[in-house]
């Protein structure tokens, strides 16, 4: 047991949220002016990215940081806690956000750009940053609401009839999820008398009524599972994302479900770890298997480019949950690796789909053909991104899945690993389906943009692909980081000590955690 000490106080953990909100306000004040929106919006995205980077390097150098809102001491006030897990996700969210922003500037119609797209974009980022960084369960709920509202307005931006139809389903189901969240927080607060995550960890570890706590834990599985879009709670996702313009769908793909899966990783490594054989080895692995399988059958059946990708968000979440389910350092590292990999490559694929749609005017596979000949760079970017998603070497997806498989086999989860392998095959199959229809075949069909005019739209996706390639060739760095993070997660006493001090952490040690 090393590093059992209080983390230094710092304002850094809240910086990404503050920067994003600040720029959102600036953007609202200057709405309607296109150049202002783009310039200030870009400045905001970059400023947030710089904040993310500073936070990331500082935590890497100095260990966890704690920010106390209003300087109220833990566990009474709201805390932001930056540790290895969430600063990584914050950084990747910042990078993916910046690249998506770049794509949005180039692809989104001017009416939407002029309206409130940019401020909403920043609020969305702020909400995600907040959800990643907060160390307070009720505050997490608040940031869930921020992301939900921002995403709902972004989803319906433009007010087309089909957008409103899907948006309504989206918001109603997510409101139900908020209601469950409130129920969960309420019964947890009543039972344990606190909402600070570290404090919750201490109290859960020392509480007598473990059966009841398990019930509360399962309520939170439903809450976060709805956000993460796992089985059997994912129905709202696959058809709603594709109705938004690509830049927005890409952003959602990168961030929203990841907030849910992050929350599961956070809460089920820190707070609810007393009955791992039931929650993790039992519930999560079963749900993960179903999520992978049902999520991948959609893409096999679908003939719409963006819907295939949206379904794959679900199937890939299954892999992440699988890593949490095995709850070994290697598997957990695989899960973390997979989250990061997926944030990057799934967004890249969405942007590729968007660029392709700009060229062909459709996202229906059967109405496209032969883009390899007319748009070779776009085709190459798709092909490699698709391989990465399917987990083919040497791209990042191979290494994250490899870690998941190794971890799974070590833990004796042969069936789950077998399922994950079959799902990898079907993922590849669906990517190849897109490739055969859209990029191979005779060069025919509509071409709204020639190859040269398309390249500004391809670069953002290519940049994301490059990151995926980098995370593949540099797999040892990413894996080592994820592995060290996994070890940290599996030792919740460290987090508790960082927030509440070594005495509180001793309670955990006493409880055998």
């Amino acid at each position: 047991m090393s590093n059992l000490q209080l983390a230094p106080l710092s304002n850094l953990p809240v910086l990404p949220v503050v920067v994003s909100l600040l720029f959102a306000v600036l953007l609202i004040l200057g709405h309607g002016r296109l150049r202002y929106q783009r310039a200030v919006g870009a400045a905001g995205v970059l400023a947030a990215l710089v904040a993310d980077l500073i936070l990331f390097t500082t935590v890497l150098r100095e260990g966890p940081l704690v920010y106390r809102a209003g300087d109220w001491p833990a566990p009474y006030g709201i805390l932001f806690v930056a540790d290895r897990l969430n600063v990584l996700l914050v950084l990747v969210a910042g990078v993916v956000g910046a690249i998506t922003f770049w794509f949005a500037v180039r692809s989104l119609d001017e009416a939407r750009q002029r309206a409130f797209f940019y401020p909403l974009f920043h609020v969305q980022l702020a909400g995600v940053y907040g959800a990643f960084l907060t160390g307070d369960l009720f505050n997490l709920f608040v940031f869930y609401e921020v992301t939900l509202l921002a995403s709902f307005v972004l989803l319906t931006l433009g007010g087309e009839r089909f957008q409103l139809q899907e948006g309504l389903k989206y918001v109603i189901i997510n409101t139900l999820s908020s209601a469950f969240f409130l129920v969960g927080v309420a019964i947890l607060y009543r039972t344990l008398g606190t909402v600070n995550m570290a404090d919750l960890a201490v109290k859960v570890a020392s509480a007598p009524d473990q059966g009841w706590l398990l019930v509360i834990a399962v309520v939170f599985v439903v809450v976060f599972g709805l956000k993460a879009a796992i089985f059997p709670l994912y129905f709202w996702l696959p058809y709603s994302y594709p109705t938004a313009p690509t830049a927005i769908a890409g952003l959602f793909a990168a961030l929203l479900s990841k907030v849910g899966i992050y929350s599961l990783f956070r809460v089920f490594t820190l707070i609810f770890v007393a009955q791992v054989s039931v929650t993790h080895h039992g519930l999560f692995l079963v749900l993960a298997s179903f999520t992978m399988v049902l999520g991948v059958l959609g893409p096999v059946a679908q003939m719409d480019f963006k819907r295939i990708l949206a379904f794959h968000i679900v199937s890939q979440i299954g892999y992440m949950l699988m890593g949490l389910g095995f709850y070994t350092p290697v598997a957990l590292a695989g899960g973390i690796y997979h989250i990061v990999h997926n944030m990057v490559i799934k967004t890249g694929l969405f942007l590729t789909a968007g660029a392709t749609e700009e060229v062909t005017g459709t996202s229906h596979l059967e109405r496209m053909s032969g883009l390899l000949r007319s748009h070779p760079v776009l085709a190459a970017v798709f092909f490699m991104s698709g391989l990465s998603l399917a987990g083919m070497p040497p791209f990042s997806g191979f290494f994250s899945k490899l870690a998941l498989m190794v971890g799974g086999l070590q833990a004796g989860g042969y069936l789950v690993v077998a399922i994950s392998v079959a799902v990898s095959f079907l993922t590849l199959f669906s990517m190849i389906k897109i490739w055969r229809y859209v990029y191979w075949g005779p060069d025919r069909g509509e071409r709204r943009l020639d190859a040269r005019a398309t390249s500004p739209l391809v670069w953002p996706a290519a940049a994301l692909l490059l990151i995926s390639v980098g995370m593949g060739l540099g797999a040892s760095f990413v894996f080592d980081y994820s592995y060290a993070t996994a070890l940290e997660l599996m030792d919740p006493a460290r987090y508790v000590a960082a927030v509440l001090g070594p005495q509180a952490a001793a309670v955990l040690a006493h409880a055998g955690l």
Partner: protein
Amino acid sequence: MLPTVLTLPFVAAGLVALFGHRAGSKLASVALAVPLAIFAWLVAQVGALPPGGLVWSHGWIEELGLALSFRLDGWSLLFALLIAGIGTLVLWYSRFYLGPDEDHSKFVLYLLLFMGSMLGVVFAENLLVLYMFWELTSISSFLLIGYWHEREASREGALKALVITVIGGFAMLVGLLLLSLSAGTLSVRELALKASEIQAHPFYPWIVGLILAGAFTKSAQVPFHIWLPSAMEAPTPVSAYLHSATMVKAGLYLVGRLSLVLGGTAAWTYPVVVVGLLTMLVGSYTALRQRDLKALLAYSTVSQLGFIMAALGLGTPGALGAAAFHLFNHATFKGALFLVVGIVDHETGTRDLAKLGGLRRAMPWSAAFMTLSALSLAGVPLLSGFISKELIFTSLVEAGSLMGGLAWLLPGVATVASLLTALYSFVLFHEVFDGQARGTTPRPAREASPALLLSPGLLTAVAVLVGLGPHLVTGSLIDPAASALAGQPVEIHAALWHGVNAPFLMSATALVGALAFYPARHRLRALLERLTTRWTAERAYQAFLNGLMGLAQRVTDRHMTGRLADYLLYILIAFVVLVGGTVLANGGFALRPLDLASPTVVELVLLAAMVAGTLFVVRTRSGLAAIITLGVVGYSVVLLWVHWQAPDLALTQLVVESVSVVLLLLAFVHFPKLERKPVAAGRRRLNLAVAVLSGAMVSWLSIRANGTQLFEPISQYFIENSLPLGGGRNIVNVILVDFRGLDTLGEITVLSIAALGVYMLVGSRIRRTRREAAERQEGEGL
């Protein structure tokens, strides 16, 4: 040096991807410098390898068993020479084979990628690294088969090859990971030291099965062979290179490589030998049935791969040497055959045996190369195929001698298959080149340019030279390869004449039988047609694809209905089942006395009002009534707050309820009429049950939580510090603006965003109305 050699093709591929399109059709002749240089380096290593091979190693990700380690030993060197050597010839050939307006840069790019990947497979010392390159060969093969992707058949062939080899690849990956789990390493060398430990491990049968699945799919063994004939849609140089000389031999490479680790047991030997010989037999008689020259060669390749596989499976030093030798010979003569068929196709416009004939006069060089290579394939003495085939026969006879009454089985099957092989080999040159010119080809036949003839010529020359003087390669190449596999020095006895023994009799039987049957080959073919259950593997593949698509479609359509009511129902069911199930498993729903406080009359009355109001909202058909009743429910909650002496909450709720009701009423004019769609009675009952159960669930959770206060709540701190530290007497206010001010910031953001959303929706509605009005006016104006 190994990493440099390995990266060279990839660097070259990168350059080709960036600048290749500028070079036009000359690209291939520039790019062949890469394999040529590698070939030269490899040749320099022949006879100069240190014992144990040339090793380069670097750590990578220890926890996953990954290490960047490579080794060049005899077995790898044999393959690497074929990859680089035939790669050079094929690049040269394709520069003239592809038309000037074809996309040379993509072709060369894919070919270089393949070359690098294949070298990676044979250089890798860590099996996971081998796997990574293995999958890359599948991908580059996919791209090359689909090179002419405008054609439906190319796309289908590419898909089939990918599906089958990738499924095998994934199986193999799992097998490798199990291997790693049972031995603690994935280094081939270290694994070999732990062979007995691995073979005693309970995973052993799984490891063998899964790894062989990878090897068999890659090397087109029955029943996975069906992808190889379809892969013939690729340009012929690709078929010669990937689908005959190198990639399809990766499975053989792996089986050979692992024979020290996994071999020597019945679980390994039987499947490999049986599948190998079966593949040989199926391949040879199916080849005989083909009328398309490339299809014939494809099945011939299947058959020969099976032959070598069986020899590897036997695993004796002699058999391994024979396998290595035959593998080398097959790569050369089969490469030559493919390239000549490519020339015939190129010059005459057809590969159909029915249209070809008597080309000898017009194409003398092609005829000579085809004849010599085909005779080598048939196993005619003085050519390379004869010698290596004899050696495998020898091993089969030896193995058979251990099988008692079944001693004849292995040699017998091999002899029959060899007879059929000889038969179709004769067809290859006799039907195409002999006899009268028939003039039925799309283009009049003429000899190809010397440039195009160079590659098959060189390969044929190798077959002839090795046939005349096997010692040219056996001592320097084949023996080291076999020694690397056997883990002990192996010396094969390649000679033109061993005397009249069993192997010689087998060869003689095959050749004489083939000559005897040759005039009756058409009848034999007809007989085979009737005998065989055709395309069962092919049907299975199609059924698999169709079944998969159908299943995916049905499952998806069934639950992704697009209806909100369905989704909500599923989610609530999930909630009830998951949470309810956990409750049942942890003590059940029984509430303890302290959970239940007796409610006051006021509370009961308000509760009744709320329940009645909610029921009414659900039942009513009038939107107006629903809004007002919702208000009633809300005000009842306000009264509850008042009753519980929480004035802040009561006031807030009062404002919220009032504003909501007023706004809803104002907006009511614009609401569509509430319509009820008829719902099936069963579904109604389900809805009702789920609604009641989830409501009950939440109620139970609240009551249970209320009675389970395990710790002192933090609210005491707020009560104590609200005034001294927060400076306010109203605790709720201090909590909102100070203690938990960040929450409030978030909620303010939420409200602002909601306001923005409403503003934009209204705005877009106004714009739409204006636009429509303008359009109407325009319409009237006209």
